[in-house]
């Protein structure tokens, strides 16, 4: 049903199916393709510590540009560049389940198996960081 084979109780009960939604994603290349939407568990498949944790199977987005930049800067100060670009995206309804943290604007997205980046995401704007 999902793009990833998820662990038990994942996504959490508090996650909801998305309506059409505008979200921000920080990414590396200058073109947003499937390689930019890889969850942590696939980026680091040998990292055994996170192979059963639901968040590691989600893709991170932000509900707000400023909140995304704030997190980008926070992690940059820790010595890691999360990406070179930030994209404003319109994601089609029923693409998956989302859980938004209203305090930080961070959003975990677990995409359904049928989700297709070329059809279900519209890139509205890309800004270089």
């Amino acid at each position, binding site marked *: 049903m999902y793009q990833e084979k998820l662990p038990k109780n994942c996504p959490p009960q508090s996650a909801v199916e998305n309506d059409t939604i505008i979200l921000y994603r920080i990414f590396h290349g200058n073109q947003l393709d499937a390689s930019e939407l890889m969850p*942590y568990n696939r980026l680091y498949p040998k*990292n055994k*510590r996170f192979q059963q944790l639901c968040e590691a199977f989600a893709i*991170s987005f932000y509900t707000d540009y400023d909140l995304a930049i704030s997190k980008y800067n926070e*992690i940059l100060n820790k010595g890691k560049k999360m990406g070179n670009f930030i994209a404003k995206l319109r994601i089609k309804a029923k693409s998956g389940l989302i859980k938004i943290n209203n305090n930080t604007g961070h959003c*975990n997205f677990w995409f359904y198996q049928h989700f297709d980046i070329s059809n279900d995401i519209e890139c509205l704007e890309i800004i270089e960081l």
Partner: protein
Amino acid sequence: MNTLEKYKIPVSPFENSEVQEILDFADIPLLYVEVDSIGKLYLNYLDRFIDEHLEQRFVVPISEQRLNALKKGTLSVGEAFCHPETPLIFVTHVSQLDGDIKENYLLPNEVFQTFNSVSTTYFLSSEEEPVAAKTNLVKGEKLLVEIGKFFDEQKFLFNADEMFMAQKVIHLLRERISLSGEMR
């Protein structure tokens, strides 16, 4: 030799520990709870990357009570590290690639505080998972059954007025739990 090297320990207390819950995740796990082989809980914070894929993390033992306060947002993450419950704090170097802990350091609190980078304004969301809230309701119902039984079995300890009051309180709590369950 830098200050940290003086506190290197040859054993790895987190060799068999498991990440129990991620508390803050933004493409990478920033803060999580891990549990060691004897069930002790630790709060684990990403301080910084000391190499491309090598994380320096702060790890403090944490009680369930404190952890709950942290999750409810009544205690900041910074406070948990500024005023830890134990006088010794771990610093670990962990590979992001395979999760292996490359080095372990054990620092007295006063030394750790010179490294401590956790902001005291860093609070977690106060959003509680409905599943946890529901579990608490079930626990509450069970507790009320036990209290009811206790009053029935130990009637001789109370006079009629006290029994009436106790039953009224139990009834009120049952109603509230039932109402709260319907609202979810």
